[in-house]
């Protein structure tokens, strides 16, 4: 203890305290305050950046979910549209078929009618011609037969015979 007290230099103590306090003040102003502030700012920045990243991630997830939903919807819509189109096509085809059938039937019946009338006309024509021909043949035959007297007589006989019968 005696040695300690003997070693103690008051002047050195005063200098030490003065210098240390001065150093403390200077360092506080020019070093510690800016350093601690900068470090705090940086840490705050990192914290904020992490939070922002987390938010962005969440947003991203939301967006993904949204787009997934949209895609799903679009897919459903497409499906529905395709179905509708298919139905429409089928309906149209059925309609067309129906219409074609009706038209065809109509045409066929018309054709049949035409054919019928043509046929009737032809038959009538043929009848006329046959009648003409028959008359001409009969004329010719009559002429032939009436050229000689015997035959004319015979005919008159025949006819008279028939009449008698009646």
């Amino acid at each position, binding site marked *: 203890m005696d040695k300690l007290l003997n070693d103690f230099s008051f002047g*050195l103590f005063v200098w030490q305290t003065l210098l*240390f306090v001065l*150093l*403390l003040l200077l360092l506080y102003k020019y070093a510690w305050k800016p*350093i601690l502030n900068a470090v705090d700012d940086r840490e705050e920045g990192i914290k904020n950046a992490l939070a922002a990243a987390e938010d962005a991630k969440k947003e991203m997830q939301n967006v993904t979910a949204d787009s997934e939903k949209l895609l799903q919807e679009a897919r459903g819509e497409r499906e529905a549209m395709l179905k509708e189109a298919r139905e429409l096509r089928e309906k149209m085809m059925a309609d067309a078929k129906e219409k074609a059938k009706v038209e065809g039937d109509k045409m066929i019946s018309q054709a049949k009618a035409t054919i019928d009338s043509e046929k009737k006309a032809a038959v009538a024509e043929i009848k006329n011609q046959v009648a003409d021909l028959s008359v001409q043949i009969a004329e010719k035959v009559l002429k032939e037969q009436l050229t000689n007297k015997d035959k004319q007589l015979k005919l008159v006989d025949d006819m008279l015979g028939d009449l008698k019968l009646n």
Partner: protein
Amino acid sequence: MRSLLTVKVLFICSIFLGFSLSATAKEETSEGTKKDLKTEIKEYIDHHLQDSHDFSIFSYTADSGEHVYVGLPLPVILWDNGIQIFSSSQFHHGETLAQAGGNYYALDHGKIYKTDAEGTITYDEEGHATNVRPIDFSITKNVVMMIITGLLMLWLFSSLARSYAKNNGVPTGAGRFFEPIVLYIRDDIAKPTIGEKRYRKYMPFLLTIFFFIWFLNMFGLTPLGINVTGNIAITFGLALLTFLITNFTGTKDYWKHLVDPLGDAMPWYGKLPIYVILVPIELLGLIIKPFALLIRLYANMQAGHIVLMSLIGLMFIFKSWIGSPLSFFLAFAITLIEILVALLQAYIFTMLSSLYFGFASEEHDHHEEEPELAHL
């Protein structure tokens, strides 16, 4: 790379110390005194541990027999009924008297005494000089070292602070080494001991004291023969600041706890006999805490220097092929340990200061609990 550098530094350190020791040895023999090597080494160590009025780097004995000191003289400032300022070169390392303002001053074992024109110093039976000692405000070697350390710290840390602005919040250069230490002090010393809310106002002091002690400890390991943190006046000054800050920032709770440690846990007639012992202990603790701080740092640094220099001194005592290398390697190992101690002591001082601040600034929550307890 770093360890290689340390080895180099240590090697040079040992050479320097050895060199100055041998120089002293020569001087003593040339003067024909009867001191043997052991007393001489002891005196050399004592001399090294003390503060000095000049900044000598090393000394040697010239061929002419004259003792040559290489270094700088420092200003001597005395308060002796007015300020006396003169250069320490006037003392010629204690060999001559200095004259200033009509008074004569002599340098004896690192202390300045007022003498008559002949320079007579009278001693009492214990060997202490009885002459008048003027108050010595000299810029001594320790003061110079503190100024150098202070400037170094200012330069280092203000450049670190500026590098943040310049480099977008990322330190450059030496700051990359120091920033983690600053953060360590904040996150692992101040925050856990003082608490998240109040640690900030103590940070400048904790940071300053940590780096101040660490740097001065490290300077103590250089071959310049510096022993600042092993000086009782320095550690006293540092511990005094811790003491003052602790008590000036002490909250009401802290003071209440000091004089009334048990609080409402016991009726007053029960507390009385306990407090007769407890309160003086608490009050003594106020002084003992910083006192332990100052003694711990002083004794550790002082002891480290003594051990290291004794081992180096042993090299010259052994003077053999086995003993001298052995003590060299021992000194080398101790130096490595001292590098650790330099950091450790700075850490301990900072940690304990922070702990005391934590005690002083603590605010208990029991004020808020009291009304609730009244309901019960």
